[in-house]
């Protein structure tokens, strides 16, 4: 009885803490959302907090009327899908052999991988590399350099090596080769980690824009985040127009910036619920038995 009350109080405290952490994450989103839906004079006189004031969809009309935005969005969706699929394939193909203790030169390869986690060439060597590979202004510049994340690869490798060896041994005895084992036993058992890593890759690709900033000058290949970056930072800020001596009469309204932010964020947010069940799913319950 006593302990029942105690645990209930404990639950309540937990709930309160979780509730506030959720608020901390949600309120900024809500604020941006309501700014994107409010009138400009309401935003400027600071009357907008959590709910839109003087509701208007003008900003979204502008964003959706902008063909380059829509094109960038579609391009980024395709880019993210292709990138994630290729990344996962490459990461799996590298992590699986490296998870086998018997592989010759395993430590050497691992060391090479780990080194890249600590040292990188820097911006200019990277640019030269991409240029000499002929990837400037090519989709490839946005895909190939980031195909394998060393960190993700090591996570996956560790996960693979923690799988019970007896599973694979029994499959070997049944005459399966390694490829079959990988595809039919290891991967199905690793769905949670695969889902997580895919999400890392997808969100990373979706949000990253430094590479496109440097390697892409063709506006047809602008990912959505680069567009967003330009809208939020480049576009005729008061400081820039002061430096340039142009007339700062046509600055971009806050609500349009906020609408662009929502436009770029919502698609990737939609991925989370879809992958949610894999995070929750228990890992390999009862895979050995039976």
């Amino acid at each position, binding site marked *: 009885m006593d302990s029942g009350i105690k645990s209930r109080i404990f639950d309540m405290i937990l709930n309160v803490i979780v509730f506030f952490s959720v608020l901390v994450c949600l309120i900024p989103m809500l604020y941006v959302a309501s700014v994107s839906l409010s009138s*400009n004079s309401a935003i400027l006189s600071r009357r907008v907090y959590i709910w839109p004031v003087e509701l208007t969809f003008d900003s979204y009309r502008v964003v959706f009327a902008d063909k380059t935005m829509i094109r960038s969005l579609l391009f980024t969706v395709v880019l993210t899908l292709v990138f994630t699929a*290729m990344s996962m394939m490459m990461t799996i*193909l590298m992590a699986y052999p490296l998870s086998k203790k018997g592989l010759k030169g395993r430590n050497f390869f691992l060391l090479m991988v780990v080194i890249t986690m600590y040292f990188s060439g820097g911006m200019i060597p990277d640019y030269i590399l991409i240029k000499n590979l*002929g990837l400037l202004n090519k989709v490839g510049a946005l895909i190939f350099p980031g195909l394998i994340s060393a960190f993700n690869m090591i996570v996956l490798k560790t996960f693979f090596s923690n799988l019970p060896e007896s599973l694979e041994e029994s499959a070997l005895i049944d005459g399966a080769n390694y490829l079959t084992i990988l595809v039919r036993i290891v991967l199905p058992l690793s769905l949670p980690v695969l889902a997580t890593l895919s999400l890392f890759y997808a969100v990373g690709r979706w949000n990253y824009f430094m590479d496109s900033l440097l390697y892409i000058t063709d506006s047809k290949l602008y990912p959505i985040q680069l567009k967003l*970056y330009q809208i939020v930072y480049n576009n*005729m800020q008061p400081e820039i127009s002061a430096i340039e001596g*142009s007339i700062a009469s*046509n600055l971009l309204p806050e609500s349009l910036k906020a609408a662009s932010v929502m436009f770029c964020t919502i698609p990737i947010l939609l991925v989370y619920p879809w992958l949610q069940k894999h995070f929750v799913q228990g890992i390999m319950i009862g895979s050995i038995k039976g």
Partner: protein
Amino acid sequence: MRKKALAIISMIFGIMLIVTATAGCAPTGGQTSTQQPSTGSTDTGKTETPTTTAKPVELRVEVFDRGTPGQTPVDNNYWTKWIQENFGNPNNIKVTFVPCPRSQEVDTLNVWMATGDAPDICLTYDVATVYNYYKEGGLSDLTDALNQYGAQLKQYLGDDLLKYGVYGGRQYAIIAKRVIQANTGTFIRKDWLEKLGLPIPDTTDEFYQTLKAFKEKNPGNVDKVIPYAMTHDVDYVAYGFFQTFLEDVSDKDYYVKNRLFLPGWKEGARYLNKLYNEGLISPEFPLDRDGKMRDEDVIRGYAGSYGGNYDLALRNVPGHNTNLKKNFPDAEFIPIDPFTNIYSGKHRKELYDPTGIRMIVPKTSQAKVDAVIKYLNWMADPDVLFFLQFGEEGVHHTIVDGLPMLTQVEGEKMMPSLQNIDYTLIVNGIYLADATKRIKANAFSYPGNEHLFEDSYNLAIRDGYVNPGAGLIPTDADAKYGKVLDDKELEIYAKSITAKPEEFDAVWDSLIQEYLAAGGQEVLDQRAKLWDELRGN
């Protein structure tokens, strides 16, 4: 068996790598062939001379990409085509535009320069970047080409402006003309003045009396009155109070002592301290880091006056006057210039220097120097410049009172940047040869506030002067401590102005010591040294 299979998987992995790598290379074959001639030829420096060859010279010009919603591609649009037709074709030059993200211009330029991939005309607003490239021998000498092909350009820019691009007696950079040098201005509620029957204040003291009247009588009948609204950027938004007490000093001293150490500057801060303690300025100004609190106070009708950019009240965004009128139909901010220097009686204020964007030609493009100058010289033709700035009549502009008024154009013929600034390299701002017409044409950019612009502008340049240090490169100490010292300076204002009047001196002096210790002294020393080096005694 087991190892063999592992090896197979490793091999698949290897094959994947090769496949992806070649996939990356495959489509490049076609592209490199088009790029090869230009880079190859510039590297060796012995290119075909442009005079007789049938093959056009490729001139690569950097262009800023600002990501304006709905914009046409900045490297292929109505304007680039017009430039090709009217300049490129007659001169057997193929003008190619190379986009560069506006906010990353310096980083991108550094990468380009380091990899030998830079366009023939590179752009930057950063003086230090230009100077560093000059010192490292990265720039082409433009002197001879300018003399041979640049008569019109030289006439348009004038020696004053050309000299900003001269290093060691040779022309290494061409610097665009900045049309609007006006910098700071002050605004006051006209309806409040009328209600109290007060004249437009014409001296610092009259202004102070006006602020006091605002505070006591609350002419707007609002919840709280802020007679003079400020942000944390004190030396800018309250420039006039400092200028009131400044003594005249030599050019060198003015440059070296940069604000805080100028004789009289402290008195300006002391005056603001008085205003603060009498409740005449925004009580929370140090917290207003982006001006949003100020904007709010202005639009809600709390503020009686404020300072800042000379056109701040007239701008569409944040739209002080426009939005204020929505809340109070009779309210309006008008430009004033009350601050008078106690020594000279003048309304002194600092202006922007007349320089705009800096154009440089990297060493790798030495062979294209003539084409570069021809291009800029062609642009200096008044008709060409007019078209690039104002476009077609009836499409991009209409003639109002004999002056071109730009209209918003969407679709194919739109201007991807304000006033088409990215294609009018040699000018920053709306330019007409006639000075009065120029100002009138600029006023069109403030719909609803056109009637205030001319006053605003004229007051903002009255008794103005350019900082004698303009065009000097920042010292190493400036580069090293700049950010820290700027923050420190704002801290000095925040703490000393909000101190009790009797504690002002102690607070100011101790913070100045901290400023000097935090690198301020080094900046002072290096600035003095740099001045002697570059400008003589």
